[in-house]
């Protein structure tokens, strides 16, 4: 008898919209966990809208045997807008600048709601391995030197990749 309307209509911790995002991310997480793909992995930080992901460099590329950490930040209207993805581990790559920003069309204008964390990670992994034959991307490289060296001097390129790479410590990870 002492139910009051306020109790029932009290705002839920997550609004309906936010609830959808959470639900979707939960599902994605569950999928990632239940069918793990070798070489990629992701897990939420303290809340579901911030994730940390790990990809290992594909074999046969300058990035082989290296692991890279990435941060995912999901907007409130995900999956209708792409997540913001940044490389946290320093990386030397034509399409990634020194702050870790990535030039990848599916993270920008080519984003579609059918993409998910897994597909983004796979794309990024292949970006590391690709010969950047995708001309539309080489046309505007974020790292011009890398773009040049890629073809001209693979040995120097690999040296620079290794020089730049540095695994994050646990403390740095915790700060993500």
């Amino acid at each position, binding site marked *: *008898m*002492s*139910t*009051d*309307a*306020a*109790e*029932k209509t009290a705002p839920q911790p997550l609004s309906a919209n936010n609830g959808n995002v959470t639900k979707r991310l*939960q599902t994605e*997480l*569950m999928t*990632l*966990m*239940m069918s*793990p793909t070798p070489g990629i*992995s*992701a*897990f*939420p*930080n*303290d*809340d*579901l809208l911030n*994730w*940390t*992901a*790990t990809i290992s460099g594909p074999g046969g590329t300058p990035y082989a045997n290296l692991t890279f*950490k990435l941060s995912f930040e999901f907007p409130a209207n995900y999956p209708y807008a792409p997540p913001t993805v940044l490389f946290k581990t320093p990386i030397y790559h034509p399409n990634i600048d020194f702050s870790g920003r990535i030039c990848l069309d599916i993270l920008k204008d080519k984003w579609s709601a059918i993409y998910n964390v897994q597909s983004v990670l796979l794309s990024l992994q292949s970006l590391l391995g690709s010969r950047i034959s995708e001309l539309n991307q080489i046309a505007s490289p974020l790292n011009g030197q890398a773009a040049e060296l890629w073809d001209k001097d693979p040995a120097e390129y690999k040296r620079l990749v290794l020089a730049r790479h540095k695994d*994050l*410590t*646990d403390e740095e*990870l*915790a700060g*993500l």
Partner: protein
Amino acid sequence: MTTTMASSHEALVFSSVFPVSAHHTTPTPLATPDLGFTTEGQSFGGVDITSPLLSSRPVAQEIKQNQAWSVATRYLSLARAPFSQISQWNLKQAPTRDISDALRYLLAGEGAQAAGDEGQSLLDWYVNEIRGHYLACVQPSIQPLWKPGLDCRHSWSLLEETVNRLGQAQALYLQPLRDYVLPIIHDAPSNTSTAQQGAVHSKATQLASKFRRDLDAVITHSIPLQLVSKALSYVLFDAGCRIFDIHPNQAEPKKPAREDVLHARNRTVRLLRGLREVGLAGDQAQRAFAQAMDKLLGQFIVSHHMKVDWYGRAPVTKKLRQWVKEGFAPFATEVMECLSAGETPLPFGPLEIQQWQDMATQRLGRARVDNLFDYVVNWDRSLGAILDLKDYITTPAARSHLAISFSKQLSRRLLHAGATTTHILNVYIYVIRAFNELDPKAVLLDRVAKPIRRHLRDRPDTARIIVASLLADVQDSHGNTLHPSGDISLEIATEMLHPVASQHDHDHDLDWGNMAWTPDPVDAGPEYRKSRSTDIISSLLSLYDREDFITELKAILGAHLLSATTPGFEKEIRLLELFKLRLGEEKLQACEVMLRDVLESKRIDASIRGTISRNPFDVSPDTKTRSTRRTTPPRPNPLLLLLAPLRDDTFLPPAAVRAAQSRYAAGFERVKDMRKLHWMHALGRASVRLELEDRVVEEEVATWQAAVIDAFGEDGEAGDEARRSVAQLEAALEMDEELVRNALAFWIGRGVLRETAPDSDVFEVLERLPAANDAGAAASAATSTAGQAARPAAVQAIKSQQDVLEENTALYRQFILGMLTNQGAMPAPRILMMLKMAVPGGFGGGVEELRGLLGGMAEEGILQGGGDVWGVKK
């Protein structure tokens, strides 16, 4: 006495010759004539006796005045003697002729007129004299009585002593004035007219009262008034306690004799009169009295007179009002009369008494509020206290005080982790009932129930307990009350027995003919709704969103139906109808289907049994073990989908049972159009009858238990005396080791099996109970396994938390791996927190379970741990 008389007489004689005292003036001797002044041209000469100056000039008058003054002051002066010798003080003897002449001259005669102060100066002098005497003689005897920090218990004697001493001194001071001085003023102008006489009279009274005032001032200024009023307030309080039979410091009140009451009353009156006499009954005393009365009222309210009426369940407020009117007010009047006699006593009219009564009720209410939680918990024996409160909460301030205070008590005493949910639910029901009595408009209930509801909603087991309690049986077939286990709220279950409250409250606001209509309470919140059902169950069911309850209801109803033995499911049907009424019919279809399935199963069961000519469920495999198996009614799939995960331990039932099952299944398929029957072996019950060599054991047991004991019987002819090892049993029955051991422990506890040798893992049937000397061993064996034997109860149809944990281990491992891969090493508590957040359904264990899991992963080389921090092995 004679000696003192004599000595004083001597002193008088002596002093008439030699003036001894320095403090009365010695006048010009008569023998020395006043020669006046020589006039101009006149030589200084001898005594001119004829000169008229001597008799008529003012100088002569002055001399006379001086002489009279000297005589009078000498007479009025007081002997300085220490107070301890007060008995030697004596009153002034009647003045001799010349003294009274002198007095008359000074007070009423020419002397007075000449001085122009009409006797004032002599009285002033006397007051001064008294002051000096008082300070010198009386005060030193009173001062030590009133040391700071005096003990209240001595107040009576202290006050009485003080009053006594002051009274003596006062009598001494007043006596000459009253006896000799005032009559002179009175009598003096006997020759004047009556009008003048009246004026003289009033002057005399005026003088007397001025003198009294002066005297009072002397006394009041010499005594520490604060201490006195403190003592007085204690004395009055104590007197009140005695008169009204209140015992503030005694545990066991004893009935006071009537004489005691009278004695206390007389003593008080005497003391107060004395105080007034010595002038200590002023404002201070009245203030002290007010304090005492205030304290007395407070004490009365906590006294045994105002105890909660636990047996009669009646309010005590009426008694309180009566006391105020017939005990308190007369006492106050009497004291005030004593304190202010002479002046008009304050009348205590009905208005004052009414105010006092209200005040007392308020105070009683506040005292009751302080213990409200106890009253609520002891509902409904505490009805009296609640009714007392009802008289209290007449003002918004009182209502809010009650609500705030009770909320505090709740949060301190109930809403903490130490209280079980069942307890909180029970108390919540008491709160509802008590507050409905207290405030039928339910505004207060609304306010105090909010924190309870919030707390209950936060508890994970609330919904389960409510639903389980609703389904529980609290009365056996004879109407006796059972005492169910801790997870059942007896109050909820009892509430279910009441008929369903009417759901159709009509709107009272629109009922123009309703003579009992009252406006909304002033402190009602904006969400206040008038036509609230006060039904307890509905308030419990509104705790959660419907979905939560329905989920819980499905699970519990399912379990309940499976284990129910009552044939008609009447209670379940009733409950379901009740829920439908409250939660909406469409939401409960799942439950409805479940219930219908069960009922249909019974019908099918009956028809299958009918079609199979001989009852296939009685099987007698061999002479020793004979298990009669009543299977749970088969259930079509929908039920299984709706239920919580069912325990599906598989094992091989005894061959005979298998045969019976397949016959039954065939019967089922015939009836139900080729539907398959899926047996849930673990969920059945079996009645087992064991015919051993010396005894017969009959038990109603779970199916796996029956299967295990049956396995001992099957191979009896093999000649190995029915011995089985655990491994053999596992293989033969295709049963989990845990279940096998569980069943073995059960049968050992029943004294049917025993382990051939300790730790051998081989068991055999006890065909004969051991003789007496072995009984001890058996008993110890039985007790050692008692703990295990108690475990079958834990194997329930619904999966336990442990099972859930094990089942989800793989999932948890994936999550942990993912987490640690991406976020680096972290301590176990943080991993637990993240798991709880990330895994759908949360983590089914605590940090200890998690550490076990992490340890396992570390052993497999997946993780590495340092301290409590775990990370992925690189």
